[in-house]
């Protein structure tokens, strides 16, 4: 039986995680509970619903997105820039869009995360409980499961272009890429994060989303396409 721990605040969520290093912070649950889930029948879950919030507001030229904002909150907010809405709309389906939380996307460290390339290209940062502001790129590279994200900060002046290549609207992407003031970032299935400089040299793998040769080609072609569109 799974154990459910309820965190009343961000600080408590961090404390509970320290006490139970194997526990999972639970946001929307669409990754953790999916298909039997990473959080199997014996897991300890730390519920975040009372610890974090889902508010989206404009602050100091940034869009501040509460960690528990759903993808649909992002789509529905009048303050969300068009490119970010487009990226949030990549979510597999509407109900998942209502249920999944932005922090869940960023903290799943998946090769097909919906928002991450756009956020990186925009130069987004995260507020982490106990640490303060952390650059998203550093957070992604560190890949640690013990840092509680409380909000995401997105510079509103960033002009970003996004492109996702997947066989169908609801399947996982072969490539999800974005180009913006901070450069080109592509999440490539099986490879992970690829920047403009790495497109040619990165090692790609054959998998269900396509062959290595195909991924190398589209990683490079999407860079050209996004640059052209940005112009």
């Amino acid at each position, binding site marked *: *039986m*799974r*154990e*459910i721990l309820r965190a009343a605040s961000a600080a408590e969520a961090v404390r509970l995680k320290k006490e139970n290093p194997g526990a999972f912070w639970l946001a*929307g*649950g*669409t990754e953790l*509970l*999916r*298909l*039997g*889930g990473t959080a199997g029948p014996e897991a300890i*879950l730390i*519920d975040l*619903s009372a610890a974090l919030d889902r508010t989206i507001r404009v602050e100091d030229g940034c869009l501040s997105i509460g960690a528990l904002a*759903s993808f*649909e909150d992002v789509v529905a907010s009048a303050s969300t820039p068009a490119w970010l809405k487009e990226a949030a709309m990549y979510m*597999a*389906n*509407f*109900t*998942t869009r*209502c*249920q999944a939380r932005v922090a869940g996307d960023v903290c799943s460290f998946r090769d097909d995360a919906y928002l991450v390339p756009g956020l990186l290209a925009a130069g987004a940062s995260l507020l982490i409980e106990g640490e303060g502001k952390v650059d998203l790129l550093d957070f992604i590279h560190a890949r640690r499961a013990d840092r509680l994200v409380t909000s995401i900060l997105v510079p509103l002046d960033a002009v970003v272009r996004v492109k996702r*290549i997947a*066989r*169908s*609207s*609801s*399947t*996982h992407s072969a490539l999800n890429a974005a180009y913006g003031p901070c450069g080109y970032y592509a999440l490539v299935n099986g490879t992970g994060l690829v920047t403009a400089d790495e497109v040619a040299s990165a090692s790609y793998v054959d998998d*269900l989303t*396509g*062959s290595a*040769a*195909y991924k190398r*080609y*589209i990683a490079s*072609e*999407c860079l*050209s*396409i996004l640059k052209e569109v940005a112009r």
Partner: protein
Amino acid sequence: MTEFILNGKKTSCAMPEDSVLRPVLYSLGCTSVRDSDDGEGFTGSDIVIIDDEPRHSNLTLLYMVEGRTVRTAESLLTRGRINDVQEAMIRAGVVQSAYNSPTVALLITWLLEKKPDASWDDLKDVLSSVFIRDAGYEHFRLALALVKEKRAFGEYRTPVSPTFRDNLDYIGKPMDKVDGRALVAGEKVFTEDKVEPGAYVLAVLRSPYAMAYITSMDTSRAEALDGVEAVITHLNCPDVYYMQAGQGNPEPSPYDRRLFNGKVRHVGDRVAAVVARDWETAHKAMGLIEVTYEPLDPIFTVEEAMAPGAPLVHNGKVSYVSGAPAGLDEYNKDADPRDGEVIYQFPLHGDIRHNVAAGAHGGIGDIEKAFAEADAVVEETYQTSQVQCTPLEPHVCYSKMENGRLVLHCSTQVPYHVRRIVAKVCGINENQVHVIKERVGGGYGSKQDILVEDLCGYATWLTGLPIYYRNTRAEEFYANSTRHPMRLTVKMSGKKDGTITGIYMDVRANTGPYGNHCLTVPMNASSKTLPLFAVDNMYYDLNTYYTNIPPTGAYQGYGAPKGYFAIMSCMDELAHKLGVDSLDMALKNVVDEGYMLEILRGLGEGREGTVVPVGSCGVKEALRKGAEMIKWGQREASPDPDWAIGKGFAMIQQGSGLPGLDQSNAQCKLLGDGTFILLSGGADIGTGLDTISAKIVCEIMKVGPSLVTVVSGDTDSCLFDTGAYASSGTYFSGNASLNAVKDLKRRMIAEAALQMDLPEDDLELEAPGFVVSKSTGRRLSYAKLSHDAQAGDGRGALVGTGSFATANSAIPYGAHFAQVAVNKRTGEIKVMKFYALQDAGTPINPEMALCQMYGAAMKSIGHTLYEDMVLDKDGRCLTDNFTDYCVPMIGEAPEDFKAVLIDVNDAYGPFGAKSISEIATNGAAPAIANAIYDAVGARVRSWPITPEKVLKALGRI
């Protein structure tokens, strides 16, 4: 204790707080909340509204709803009455197999609460949450319009569909589906809803190897586990050879398996079954079964199976029930007893010592001469992949004993084949088996096969226990039936004027581990394509090979979608080579009414076929009309230079049942109050067959639908029917219903003549339920007629019986057109327009017919562009969930999607009707492939046509 508001009522639940919400809601009586994907978040069968936001109840834990409000589709009912959204869905024809219809209704209702003027774009966005395989998405646009009209004007204003046959009242007119209300409300109508408390479960231990001998097996620890009732393996199962395809008896498929075999032939093959008190115990027991295998080198492709010295999938003793060839003893000399046996009912030209399960060859004319004298010849090979039917309701069965008889609640297309095969496996008589076909939450061919009922039924027969079995979604992929992958080589020759002079098809099919449909599915690749061509020289060779891929079987369209992909792609290639327009070529070489189909002689299902002329035929009209709609010949400019636009088409045909093989029967009873019950052997699998039967009663008896009830697919109360496959429903079961109703009418007139003391020819039936004298105007109500007939001094209850078997075909024809945009730099493909034009004879349920066309076209767009079962080098299926397997959702629906019914009246179908849905799976692959070529010059000859393949064909990678 978790407390929350469920559908407006305070609810307390004592289940563990980490329980998944969906089963909790189901146990609280909310049967609308179902599961199609084991919590994948994909299909939307489980959606609920929590505090006004949609949620996957499968991805929500009970504690999360503490103090919150939960709404399920049950909340849409007011004193048992469905709401206006549900009514509109039924009216629009989208409630078909309907496994997730209630949750769709809930979502639409919620959307309209948020946004009363919701647009189609709003609805499309919301519908991205639900996978709809049967009816497609297009008519939800109509449903939305109908609800809004009803709310604004108090009535529906948009016509639901065109209507046909002005002289008839019910046939050819939209009418609410007879089971629509129960389905859209989420009533307990599916097999899972019949499972009683205390039922045992059945779990199957499956092979990790693609091919291996089981060298030893120890089940003692599993059997000793508390709560385990039985463990069934190859060592203790009945020594009965059979096959799982639900086909007419004697079947054109070999009996090449037992319930369990000493040799496993695919990853996921049955090794053992455990009957236990609950899932936990069953799974624990499976872990205690010790099996040792001797792994063998597996083969996965036709090429590997054909290779000299290839490992043999079946190498047991071969025998024939009839027509054994000479030299059988010699053939069996080196048979390996560990491989079991292969029993052919009659020769299928199989040669298992070379992995050939079946073969067929035939044709007309002089093909070599035709090729030699042609101006151009094209010879190309086309490859189709393994695709899955993916019904929302997986394969399930609930079996129990009642008064010494085995009772099976089934989700099946073939109740009578289930009865026969289960009786055979159990070694009992058919009268000891009662099959009850429940509502079927999607079949598409996969429920034509007896994939779970054999084992579940036997387990109950063995133990006497009530047992529930349900495939996981992953098992649906690797242990279920799928479309046979095929390699088709087509050689086609023509003259400069566009005349096709010869067609040769070499079909190599992959039947996988067992021979279900191994002759007939591949046969269809030729038998449903060649007869469309008025060409004098046509030959085909067909060989089906055993391999170690997951099992294959029937899938809507059978072998025809594959044959059409090859033949219509090849025709397009020939037209380009000859420099003629491919539409002109189609029109020049297609058959027309009256054309003698000589080719049929060699295209029977294992027997000699009958030559008949083409009957009613709307193919030329479909081609011309479709060409006009899509502006054939006009090149479309793309606003974006990276994208190019192209057009393609395919002409298509199918059949309506299997003349000479199928038979259907029905009975119609007049009840004491003047109402009717029609008992149909036909299996309504969501397609509206029961509604067809009801309409036939309404039409002939001149009564409204509220006076008619249809009971179908119950093997105790209904008469035999071969089942719902091969597009037989309307033509066979519909004609049987028509004959039964006509028989009842004759009996009613005869009885009325006696009661009224008038000659029979003076009497006729009149709405709303009278026998009337034409000469005197005297009327006798059906109620009095029936009451007096069944009174103590009466002449007996009034019952009509009808049977239908025929040698005549009622062939549906059509043409599908596609316009696609292809990105030259990324290979991405968008289907911009898809027009499906079909001649279905008289469409009895026109609105449902249109939805069938949309749904079937979507399935074929799926196999054309997206769907693919991928195996690893050891034969493990890597795509055993919806996301990875990649089914098309609303995001993949063509931007402009039209289904058009070509009005043709057939001579043999009931009221001129022919079949509708299977044919609609035939067009997309060639139409889209040809359109891609037209757009960017990339010819992709294998399914699925992915961006990567397009880029390869363009030489970019």
